[in-house]
């Protein structure tokens, strides 16, 4: 078997919002040969199946449907000299930035890249990751799979649906299933608070009188070949089912919306340092990972709730990858941003003060909801920045900006970010 060889300046793994923004920015920043590798039959990523509107409010001042948002980027890529491989899967990334790509047209290709942008996005948690007991019949899907079946492939997954988990994709699918005439019995959430955005609870459930059962979960699956029903029960504060609250629901479909995980098998095998909380690479202000010349953007870094942020971060990663490919280095003293009170994580986790010329955007997720809160950035006891927030909630990312001057005031000390 022969292997084809290729050399590029910047190789982007994944042709979704992060990857295409990165590819365009890398080209713009002067990278000569830019390659995008996408495993689906077309560019666009998951947004191609998100036919509801609301994408692009920050980026374009419009509420676009997912495919329309992506078409702007796909058109821009096609108008520039950017090489695209679709139906192609990266099998391995090595620590010296060699990629092994399987393509039905070109066979196995070895790509040597001066810089790499990881833009693989995220995956859905599946049944086995939430320990659902019971039989193993057909009819149990993740929400994203159902979304692709209905919106792109024209396949009806079932007739009577129970949804487990109140993440945004699940809420959006509750509405979509109802609109196409499928009965949605209810949405069951093990936590005492909804997982998705409030406006999705209103527009997707309340608009259609779909009940939301908080502190409930599925405790049994019934059926041999096809799902015939599920047993649900109330849970206590420790998420243990409460005896006597069990209820059988007859249904042929169970949709799981139980969380997203950054997809980092390639990053992990290449030796990229992953963050225990985000599940994605530890990144600096250029979206550089711990591995020289390897950058990361979008949901592969942490699960974002706005694609606009993903595109912004993709641009940062693409520009930095082009600079690295041209031989520029971003080494030097670094300081860390550590999560303080009520902060689950903050991105980027590392900054290099001496290289900064422009303000840096940071993203964080809080642990608890709070009204009239403030983001506090502190260096020791010195307050570097305070940003007021009308309200903060765990499902909604908070973004704030630090200028190079503000960051330089930290000296060589790490910064602590809290929301109180």
């Amino acid at each position, binding site marked *: 078997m022969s292997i084809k060889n290729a050399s590029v300046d910047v190789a982007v793994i994944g042709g979704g919002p992060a990857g295409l923004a990165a590819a365009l920015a890398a080209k713009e920043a002067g990278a000569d040969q830019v390659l995008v590798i996408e495993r689906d*039959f077309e560019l666009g990523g998951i947004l191609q199946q998100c036919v509801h509107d609301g994408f692009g409010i920050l980026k374009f001042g419009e509420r676009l*449907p997912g495919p*329309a948002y992506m*078409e702007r980027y796909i058109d821009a890529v096609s108008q520039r000299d950017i090489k695209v491989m679709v139906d192609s899967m990266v099998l391995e990334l090595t620590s010296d930035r060699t990629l092994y790509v399987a393509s039905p047209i070109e066979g196995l290709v070895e790509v040597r890249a001066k810089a790499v942008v990881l833009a693989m996005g995220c995956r859905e948690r599946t049944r086995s990751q939430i320990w659902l007991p019971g039989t193993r019949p057909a009819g149990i899907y993740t929400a994203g799979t159902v979304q692709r079946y209905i*919106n*792109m*492939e*024209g396949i009806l997954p079932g007739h009577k649906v129970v949804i487990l988990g109140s993440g945004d994709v699940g809420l959006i699918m509750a509405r979509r299933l109802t609109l196409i005439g499928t009965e949605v019995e209810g949405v069951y959430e093990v936590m005492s608070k909804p997982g998705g955005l*409030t406006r999705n609870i209103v*527009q997707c459930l309340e608009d259609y009188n779909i009940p939301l059962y908080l502190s409930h979960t599925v405790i049994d699956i019934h059926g041999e070949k096809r799902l015939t029903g599920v047993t649900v029960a109330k849970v206590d504060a420790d998420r243990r089912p409460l005896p006597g609250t069990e209820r059988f629901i007859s249904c042929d479909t169970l949709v799981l919306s139980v969380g997203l995980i950054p997809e980092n098998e390639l990053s992990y095998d290449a030796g990229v340092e992953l963050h225990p909380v985000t599940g994605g690479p530890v990144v600096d202000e250029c979206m550089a990972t711990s591995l020289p010349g390897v950058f990361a953007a979008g949901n592969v870094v942490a699960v974002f709730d706005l694609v606009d942020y993903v595109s912004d971060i993709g641009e940062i990663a693409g520009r930095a990858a082009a600079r690295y490919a041209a031989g520029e280095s971003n080494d030097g003293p670094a300081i860390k941003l550590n999560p303080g009170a009520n902060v689950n994580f903050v991105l980027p986790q590392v900054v290099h003060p001496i290289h900064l010329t422009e303000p840096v955007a940071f993203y964080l997720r809080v642990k608890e909801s709070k009204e009239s809160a403030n983001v506090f950035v502190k260096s020791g006891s010195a307050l570097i920045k305070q940003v007021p927030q009308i309200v903060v909630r765990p499902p909604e990312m908070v973004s704030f900006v630090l200028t190079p001057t503000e960051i330089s005031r930290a000296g060589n000390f790490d910064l602590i970010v809290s929301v109180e």
Partner: protein
Amino acid sequence: MNDKHTLTCIVCPKSCRLYVENTGSGMQITGYGCKRGLEYANEEIRESRRMLTATVTVRNGNLPRLPVISSAPIPRRLFDACLRELSMVVVKAPVKLGQVIVRDIQKTGVDIVASRSLTKREG
């Protein structure tokens, strides 16, 4: 008649609880945190409108479904009728983003347009 109900404002993430009460002499709205919330409540009372997104059948496309969107918000009470009409629509590929698929759907004055381009299936 004295009816009272609650709405959740969807204008911003604060998600204020809005209380709407028919006092007999008019609608009294309380609970809003800003002017935009008051406007939202007034519009919801008058006529609840949302953008309608759906898919329609495509012939000879590189996908079997074409995503579509209303060019403006549509009264929610007309969603069923609009979706019934859209279920009968068959479009031929190629399709361009923004192409009108149904003009003036259900006499709303709103068009249904393509949310993406679709090329013709090869072969």
